[in-house]
């Protein structure tokens, strides 16, 4: 060993450090979680639990019963890793993660001039290639609307300076700086007003402008102030700041001689382009490896997405007063993410391969439920509106048919009227059905979907919605129809549980099912629908556990 270390040292001087090995982070995760567990850990999940979770996380939908059977029967030792790699490369992955990222970044708002479809396509393109998170964020923040990634501009909305400041601070630094616009944060000592206005200064040159030739709107930068003046509502003294990111040096805006400020003149109704472009600088400074806060916040958010809770939690409270549950793990993960050039799929894969991710959501042994920050058992997460819709459709055997439904332009579906009861017809297109689910299960536009609270209106919907109940009528070889063809309770139970809960039933569950069918022998089809309904409405179904 000693003899090789000198060689390694020599090599490390000659070439850049090697990227972290594929399994490196996975091992680090498990050792850190074990070290700070403070009690026994739940065992690794069985194949069925893992199979459902991995499909929901990577493909955004529960698997088909056929896929589940095949996976359960597969005896090869590397089947989990092979499955993870297959899903990470699938179309479903890029579709589902486009939804996730889009909701996180835009909070279901449709602002600015970029069509939602173009924005989705931009994210899809990024995810289908080898997604580097720093580059995606750079593209969104530096976007002006020119070039093939015009749609990246969607993130900036209408280019409102305060809106951009708040969103960038929250999403990419984990800092909810809303309060710090008007005064230093009252309880978070390290969040000063200068943090808010330093970030604002980077964005304050941005302006929407329309190109008179192509009539499109662009988010350009115009010559602005080098320093932004701000005042606390509590004090009458003003302060100034140039562009600055928290914890990094203030940026000096170059002072250029009159006539020398621009790199190109005004054209087609667009103002002249300054040589110094602060927002473009922000895109680079924010995503630079020197800005550890960005890498740390990124891994914390992706970790929370898969693990149900941030190492720093809540996600928008990243500051020294809110200690991480696993500080060293977070630092190592951030460092490795940087050394892997912010490779998103590598990060997800490394987390998912860990025992910590794959743990069962059942309690470890007979002990009391451990605190969530210990990650001793897998933490249940609410399904997103999209996951829920697609999973309900797949479980009930209505997915393929429903996905193909197109709106009839002659018919106008009145969604508000549908919820009030004045519009009797069911939504007929996939888009409208999706909108109905998002309205019921999503947060209102503009509110981040970090906090999931099961609502009364959601339960009422799942109990009584006529559209949902229509999916439980036998038709087109859907689940209820298929179950009707089986004779024995054992067969029905097996097919029902595999289709809805992605697992085989227990003996007790099959016995209960048999009793229910026996009791309702004269109304067998309705009873089968009720059995499906009960599982769709179960907590087990509504959680990714």
């Amino acid at each position: 060993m000693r003899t090789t270390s000198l060689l390694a040292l020599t090599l490390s001087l000659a070439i850049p450090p090697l990227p972290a090995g594929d399994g490196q982070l996975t091992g680090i995760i498990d050792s850190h979680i074990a070290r700070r567990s403070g009690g026994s850990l739940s065992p690794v999940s069985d194949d069925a639990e893992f199979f459902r979770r991995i499909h929901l996380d990577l493909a955004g939908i529960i698997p088909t019963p056929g896929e589940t059977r095949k996976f359960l029967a597969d005896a090869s030792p590397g089947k989990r890793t092979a499955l993870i790699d297959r899903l990470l490369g699938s179309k479903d992955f890029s579709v589902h993660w486009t939804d996730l990222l889009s909701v996180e970044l835009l909070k279901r708002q449709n602002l600015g001039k970029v069509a939602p479809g173009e924005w989705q396509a931009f994210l899809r393109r990024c995810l289908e290639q080898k997604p580097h998170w720093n580059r995606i964020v750079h593209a969104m923040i530096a976007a002006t609307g020119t070039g093939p990634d015009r749609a990246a501009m969607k993130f900036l909305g209408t280019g409102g300076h305060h809106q951009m400041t708040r969103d960038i601070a929250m999403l990419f630094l984990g800092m909810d700086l809303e309060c710090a616009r008007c005064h230093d944060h009252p309880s978070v000592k390290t969040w000063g007003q200068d943090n808010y206005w330093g970030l604002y200064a980077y964005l304050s040159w941005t302006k929407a402008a329309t190109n008179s030739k192509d009539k499109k709107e662009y988010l350009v930068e115009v010559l602005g102030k080098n320093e932004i003046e701000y005042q606390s509502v509590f004090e009458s003294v003003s302060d100034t700041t140039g562009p600055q990111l928290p914890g990094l040096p203030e940026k000096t805006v170059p002072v250029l001689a009159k006539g020398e400020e621009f790199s190109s003149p005004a054209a087609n109704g667009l103002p002249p382009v300054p040589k110094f472009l602060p927002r473009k600088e922000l895109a680079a400074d924010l995503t630079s490896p020197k800005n550890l806060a960005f890498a740390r916040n990124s891994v914390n958010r992706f970790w929370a997405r898969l693990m149900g809770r941030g190492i720093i939690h809540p996600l928008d409270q990243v500051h020294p007063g809110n200690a991480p549950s696993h500080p060293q793990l977070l630092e190592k993960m951030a460092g490795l993410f940087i050394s892997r050039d912010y490779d998103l799929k590598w990060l997800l894969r490394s987390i998912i391969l860990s025992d910590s991710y794959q743990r069962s959501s059942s309690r470890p042994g007979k002990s009391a439920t451990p605190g969530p920050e210990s990650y001793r058992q897998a933490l249940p997460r609410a399904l997103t509106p999209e996951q829920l819709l697609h999973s309900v459709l797949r479980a009930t055997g209505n997915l393929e048919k429903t996905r193909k439904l197109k709106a009839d332009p002659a018919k106008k579906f009145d969604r508000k009227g549908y919820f009030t009861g004045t519009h009797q017809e069911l939504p007929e297109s996939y888009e409208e059905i999706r909108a109905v689910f998002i309205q019921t299960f999503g947060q209102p536009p503009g509110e981040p979907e970090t906090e999931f609270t099961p609502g009364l209106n959601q339960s009422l919907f799942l109990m009584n919605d006529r559209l949902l109940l229509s999916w439980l009528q036998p038709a087109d070889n859907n689940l209820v129809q298929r179950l009707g063809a089986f004779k024995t309770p054992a067969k029905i139970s097996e097919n029902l549980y595999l289709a809805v809960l992605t697992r085989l039933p227990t003996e007790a569950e099959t016995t209960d099912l048999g009793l229910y069918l026996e009791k309702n022998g004269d109304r067998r089809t309705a009873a089968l629908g009720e059995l499906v309904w009960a599982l769709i409405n179960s907590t087990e179904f509504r959680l990714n556990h």
Partner: protein
Amino acid sequence: MTGQNNPHACLDPVHEMSRRRVLGVLGGLAGFGSLLNPTVSRALEKKEKQVCLIWLDGGISQYESWHPRPGTRFAGPFRSIPTRVPGVHFSELMQHTARIADKISVIRTMETKDPNHSTGVPRIQRGDPIDRGVVYPYLGSAVSKLLGPADPALPPYIWIKPGNGGFIHREAGFLGARHGALALGDGRPPVHIHRPSGISAENDTARNALRKKANERFRANRGAAEIDAYETSYEMAERLMARKEIFDESALSQKDRERYGSHPLGRHILQARQLLEAGVRFIKVNSYHWDTHGDNFNMSQRLVPQVDRPFAALVEDLDERGMLDNVLVVLMSEFGRTPNINSRMGRDHWPDCWSLALAGCGIRQGAIIGETAKDGAWVDGTGYDIGDLFHTIFTVLGIDSKRARYEHKGQKLAIAHDKCKSIREVMS
């Protein structure tokens, strides 16, 4: 799940109370606590404070209602009539309310700041507090947050309005979606409260028994808070479905329907009475199209009686039922209308001196508050700001409006404008 309480939140008593309640529930239905037997009028038995806000959107003309000035340069064609309070006159369009003037207070010197609807309505309904860079809740969301539900089986904030209903989050502001309103579009509850006709009560019970069994099994070795929250949301759904008779208009007598009037505002105020009796904490009833820039007098002749009748009937009924001690009724708009009559025989927006009415819950009876000058055009002396009204409302509801604080992201926020105070003259 990531829905943890912010550990950096301060420990204001207001928040402690709400935190102890069951995990929040979207749609204004937070905090259904224990499983109590849903007997009617639980709130009444316990003498819980309740509110009915009648909102005339667009701005009722004070000259054609509370503050007629016949014979002056600003007068319209209507006479003024005496009321039950000696020396106090209302417009002849308010004949029913004139009969019960001894049970209400009228403030004639509201002086607010916003002459525009788009900012006027939210600004007034939020109480126009000092700008702290956050979006304040509307009054209904505020009361629902500060007092919680009066009956744990019922949503704390119901909004009866023309048009569509649903779960309306936007009024909750920074309190979060769960403190929004359950809106009844033209009085109808959300459609999903109804079990589809194809499912009998018996089968519904049976399918829910299956669901509960499945949940029991799932939670056997889990017991996470998330699972409890999901089950709670179903319990609440079942309880509200069991109480849906509180939304049943057919339970109301023909005589009451005639007394309140058959137009939407009359029906909706009658329904508000029904919901107050059932024990809902806060009910807002909206009426639109009071913005009489043109043809003010014909419009007022049509509109004012539509509120006069049911408002008087509501106050009478609450009084008769002994509910007026604990139910506050507020009748108002976002501003009044100009003294000057414009070229289209209309009156424009006038925040500088306008009127509103209050009744019940310790509000003085038969009081007229505030002196006006220049034929009712201006306040004589100091007027009352909307912040003063909010302090007053909170105070009569038993909330210490000067000391209670919301907590939002570590900030303590006053519940009403710091520089305003309760209107003592209107409180008995």
